[in-house]
């Protein structure tokens, strides 16, 4: 992996400063960050926590692919993507994406592209635990 892309899947709390520091560079004037957190209410049901599991080697590969595509499409200079696995509580961070581009417009678009692709193709699964039960998100029609 080159030093412009930082991909990590971690079972400890994520830290925005780490992702931010990775992408800071003299070449760029626009840094965009997306932070996905665990919310309490989903479709009128009360959530207690989430559990994430992943197919580690493939998830890393897919995230690398997405980062390389984002670099090409949006001329992003540096990209950092961290995803949490294991049990994640309310308000805790599930995912952080930071992107540095020369100008702001491209960094907004690149950041959105990365989270959209992540949700489509990266083998990570979320189980939502409710006050009265649990289920795998997206598994059933």
């Amino acid at each position, binding site marked *: 992996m080159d030093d412009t892309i930082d991909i990590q899947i971690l079972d400890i709390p994520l830290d925005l400063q780490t992702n931010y520091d990775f992408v800071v560079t003299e070449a760029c004037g626009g840094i965009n960050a997306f932070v*996905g957190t665990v919310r309490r209410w989903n479709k009128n049901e009360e959530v207690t926590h989430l559990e*994430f*599991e*992943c*197919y580690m*080697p*493939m*998830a890393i*590969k897919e995230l690398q692919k997405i980062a390389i595509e984002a670099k090409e499409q949006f001329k992003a200079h540096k990209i950092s993507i961290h*995803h949490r696995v294991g049990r994640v509580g309310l308000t805790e961070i*599930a*995912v952080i994406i930071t992107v540095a581009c020369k100008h702001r417009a491209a960094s907004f678009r690149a950041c959105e592209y990365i*989270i959209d692709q*992540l*949700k*489509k*193709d*990266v*083998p*990570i*699964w*979320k*189980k939502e635990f409710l006050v009265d039960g649990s289920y*795998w*998100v*997206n*598994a*059933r*029609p």
Partner: protein
Amino acid sequence: MKILCFGIAREIIGSASLELDADGVTSVASLKAHLEAEYPRFKTLSAYRIAVNQTFAESSEGISEADEIAIIPPVSGG
């Protein structure tokens, strides 16, 4: 052949991996047919994909003992 199982697929099969000795399973399509016959709950999923050697595979793709094969139920990262 060994099949890795994640998320709801792990729960349907009851294990993180499945040892398969089905002779007729030589492609992604035949693997899916076999899984759905043995574990009908796969038919209730909104979709699921098969990864061969950590890459999403087409249904026509051939598979063998040497491949790393995984069942990929609908993903939900982020």
